[in-house]
């Protein structure tokens, strides 16, 4: 599972992780649950249908799924209550929307339930259908509630299939099969939320994997640079070395140093959390498939 503060690149990292896991010929499923169609946008596809679609563009068995709570509820009702056609009528009535709104916890149980189903699905020979399932999970602000399915279920139902299903999900989430990776940027708020999420997940006994620093840039400067040094360099390189150019470059360098110092501090803060840290570089040409494969290489290494 991949979480992180909104806007840090969770979907990108989740996709890179899935590609890394699929690179040895294993079948991997990449799932999103937020109804954003973020995977379709990332891979420049039409909105994903509600089935596990194989990504055609790469030489690996990677499948994509956008879980929709409505579809998951219908599937669930069909499974336990045999409501084929009636379910579709209910959807037209807006009943499904109603049920998932009236009990937001139900929505999360259905979504995590679907993920569990895919994770534990086996083929005829009893082999797991997927070597790994990567979930582009809700952001740090909601991850605790999203994963704390048993508490939600207890509020909803004392008995019945929902209760046993949520217990199954809860057991899976707390088992070594699960690992929640937290994506962050070297910025104050995402790091703060990483710390908060770690505390929350630890309290829920959900295993935490790596901290993934996205869009990191390596420190370029070792110390302050004087105007004289900049000027000499520009002259040696045959570039204009007028005063505005020199002072302009110096102030850019100073701003970079200030930023570097902040980032160094944040790195230390992350280091204190005691989890392995991976840094992924900023993809300066935008996120495309080759960029994702590059990130996958780093995650795999």
């Amino acid at each position, binding site marked *: 599972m991949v979480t992180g503060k909104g*806007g840090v690149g969770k979907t990108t990292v989740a996709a890179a992780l899935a590609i890394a896991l699929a690179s040895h010929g294993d079948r991997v499923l990449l799932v999103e649950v937020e109804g954003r169609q973020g995977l379709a946008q990332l891979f420049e596809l039409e909105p994903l249908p509600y089935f596990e679609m194989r990504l055609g563009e790469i030489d690996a068995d990677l499948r994509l799924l956008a879980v929709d709570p409505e579809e998951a509820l219908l599937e669930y009702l069909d499974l336990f209550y045999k409501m084929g056609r009636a379910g579709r009528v209910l959807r037209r009535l807006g009943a499904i929307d109603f*049920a998932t709104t*009236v009990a937001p916890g139900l929505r999360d149980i259905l979504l995590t339930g679907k993920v569990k189903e895919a994770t534990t699905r086996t083929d005829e020979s009893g082999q797991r259908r997927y070597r790994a399932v990567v979930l582009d999970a809700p952001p740090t602000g909601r991850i605790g509630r999203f994963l704390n399915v048993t508490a939600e279920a207890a509020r909803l139902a004392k008995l019945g299939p929902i209760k046993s299903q949520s217990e199954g999900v809860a057991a899976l989430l707390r088992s070594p099969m699960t690992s929640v990776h937290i994506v962050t940027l070297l*910025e104050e708020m995402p790091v703060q939320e990483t710390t908060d999420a770690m505390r929350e997940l630890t309290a829920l006994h959900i295993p935490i994997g790596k901290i993934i620093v996205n869009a990191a840039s390596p420190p370029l400067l070792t110390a302050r640079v004087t105007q004289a*040094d900049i000027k000499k360099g*520009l002259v040696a*390189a045959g*570039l204009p070395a007028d005063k505005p150019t020199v002072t302009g470059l110096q102030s*850019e360098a100073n701003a970079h140093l200030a930023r570097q110092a902040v980032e160094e501090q944040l790195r230390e803060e992350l280091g204190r959390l005691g989890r392995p840290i991976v840094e992924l570089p900023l993809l300066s040409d935008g996120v495309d498939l080759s960029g994702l494969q590059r990130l996958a290489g780093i995650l795999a290494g």
Partner: protein
Amino acid sequence: MPTNQDARFDVDAVLGDPAVRIVVCCGSGGVGKTTTAAALALRAAEEHGRNTVVLTIDPARRLAQSLGLTELDNVPRQVKDTPLHAMQLDMKRTFDEVVLTHTARERAKEIFANPFYQAMSTTFSGTQEYMAMEKLGQLRASSEWDLIVVDTPPSRSALDFLDAPARLGRFLDGRMLRLLLAPARAGGRSMFNLVTASFGIFSKAVQKILGAQLLTDLSGFVSALDSMFGGFRERAEQTYRVLQDPQTAFVLVAAPEPDAVREAAYFADRLRAERMPLAGLVLNRMHFSGVPQLSAPESTEAAQILAQSHPAAAQVLEVHELLMRQVSREATVASHFTDRFPEVPVVRVPAQPTDVHDLVGLRTIGHALANRSPEDGTET
């Protein structure tokens, strides 16, 4: 590059216009909405002498502290050393207030004790958006304020702010709620109707899934609230209409990232369709170079030449190259919005080296919002 062609968003003209009574800051999560709202409000109060209140939703801890938002009593408080007032939305308390104004005290007590009400007033999706609208309506009704600046909830989608109140209103008014609570009555006359038949099944399924207790609570809640059902929707609609009034100015906030800009474009489309007045776009966290004439490839080449002989200068050129690439990437991302909405004025706010969490920082942002983008300096 389109940077200098699009209309400049004149923030001071909006903040100083006595006809503008409400400024709504909207945009996707994590783009600096709350900071922008606070900076605009502070500027309106300090520079334009307007009696201003800022309604924040979920400010970062340190920003909340510097705005004095530690007392969570759901009423505006003056921010220390400034004429500005600020408050943080307390969703539950606001909901309670709504109930209290619309029902007798005894009834209200019953409602407050209902477990379903307790769950709904804190976790129901859309409650936060609805209560933000409600609070805005209340602040507007008290004629105390010249200007109300509203931050919008950190929704999954920026559009939730516009849609959630109506959704909640529909839910509370809803046929669905009544059908669910009285399936027998609804299905009584037309037994063979597939709709009602499947509804009966559904209701049973819901009972099994959610448990009978929840339905009982829900039923109690609904009958207790019965008297104020119409009121909910009406109030949401009233506030919605205020948002279409020229006394409101929407300020879109985005960061130069593809998702944020895409979201801003959706929102601009929607505002246009709803005839809601969009005053301008704030592009936060933009980067600028003081030496734009030295291109990224030139810098790379020079840095390679100088790597051995002048290592310090080479490093500086690498920093410049990185910055130039970022500037051009941001310009490309921003142009996805500005090309589509050339009529929407834009202001670009430079990235701050650290997060803003004090009044000094907010004033700096306010200054940048008002007109001092660095390009001005390099143009002449």
